[in-house]
């Protein structure tokens, strides 16, 4: 599955590289719009997982593309796809933004987290129950921005942890540990709500 993902991404990357070459070598600035069209929605969704205010989401998403355009000569296809590089830029912009925005995130009881069985927490996302899904969405929205982004990228955009690790400048093992802890938080929130707490 991961090989198929990488193959699809490689094919996409070649077309991205052709566009980038035209922008850089031939000065075809308008061609950059093709990349914005291609990745705009996904990048917008990526930023939206980390930023609550809609106006700020728009601005940060735009900032990401503008910065990518100005630094386009620095993009190195050998290090990853254009979309991965784009997300790196967006991630850093969002982190800077988050530092300036004080918000309250999901409260967690550490003792309770440790007491949650791993197999129960790991299956928290595997549900089709509408009520539980609503609670899950609530809980996801109350996660810290970086954790919310991790959930969105891994579960909804189905990005391999190795790719997310490049975006966040960490390693896949650390992300796997974080996801495990996030699942426990979500599970804890759901159980508390279902039991009226």
């Amino acid at each position, binding site marked *: 599955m991961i090989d198929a993902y990488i193959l699809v991404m490689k094919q996409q990357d070649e077309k991205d590289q052709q566009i980038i070459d035209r922008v850089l070598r031939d000065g075809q600035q308008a061609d950059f719009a093709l990349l914005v069209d291609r990745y*705009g929605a996904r990048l917008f969704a990526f930023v939206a997982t980390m930023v609550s205010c809609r106006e700020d989401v728009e601005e940060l998403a735009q900032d990401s593309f503008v910065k990518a355009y100005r630094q386009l000569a620095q993009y190195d296809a050998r290090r990853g796809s254009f979309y991965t590089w784009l997300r790196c830029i967006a991630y850093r912009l969002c982190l800077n933004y988050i530092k300036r925005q004080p918000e309250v995130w999901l409260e967690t009881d550490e003792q309770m987290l440790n007491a949650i069985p791993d197999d129960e927490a790991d299956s928290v996302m595997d549900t089709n129950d509408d009520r539980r899904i609503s609670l899950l969405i609530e809980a996801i929205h109350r996660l810290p921005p970086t954790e919310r982004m991790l959930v969105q990228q891994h579960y909804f955009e189905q990005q391999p942890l190795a790719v997310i690790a490049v975006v966040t400048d960490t390693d896949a093992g650390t992300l796997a540990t974080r996801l495990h802890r996030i699942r426990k938080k979500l599970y804890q929130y759901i159980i508390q709500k279902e039991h009226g707490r």
Partner: protein
Amino acid sequence: MEDKKYSKLKAYFEATQPQMPTDFTDRVMERIKPRRRLAWLYPTIAAVAASALLFLTLHYNNSNVEPAVSPMVAQQQDSIAKVEDKMYIAHHVQSVQSPNTHRTKTVYKPKKASVKRLASPETPDTLGEGIWKQKENVVLALQMLAECEAAGEQIQRNTIVEAAFQSTLKPHHLQLVVSESGDYTVVDDSKPSIIEL
């Protein structure tokens, strides 16, 4: 790829997220464009920057200035070449033995065939040669040109060079020409043999 396992959860989550505006690409491209509100500034800076360079190029050798293209003394070639290399003014430097003196002169020739003449009736008026006497203006203009080139803003960079050339006092038979690759050169109309076509 588990594309269906979390599809319902994903749909619920995405329903709670803000949607990208339909004109997102237009907004990004608008920000990438060179800023029109500085259009009044660039020609002025253009006049300062390019005229300073042309002033140095044309008037450095104060004795026996022949109507050939930009004659320079050989020992000044390094410093001028650095500036001109930065400014993309000329790329071919050839040492020519002047028939009238025993000095080695540097003649600048267009880079390739099919050079085109500049016809820039829209080139704005400039402040005249006197502006070059102010060192800070020259420094500022050079900074502007460097920024244009770093940002890949070819159009603005060309505007700077062309407008400044028009503002300088120069023999009428000297013309500024640009090759297909965007390199500028001063050529002498009175001696077509110098131009390689």
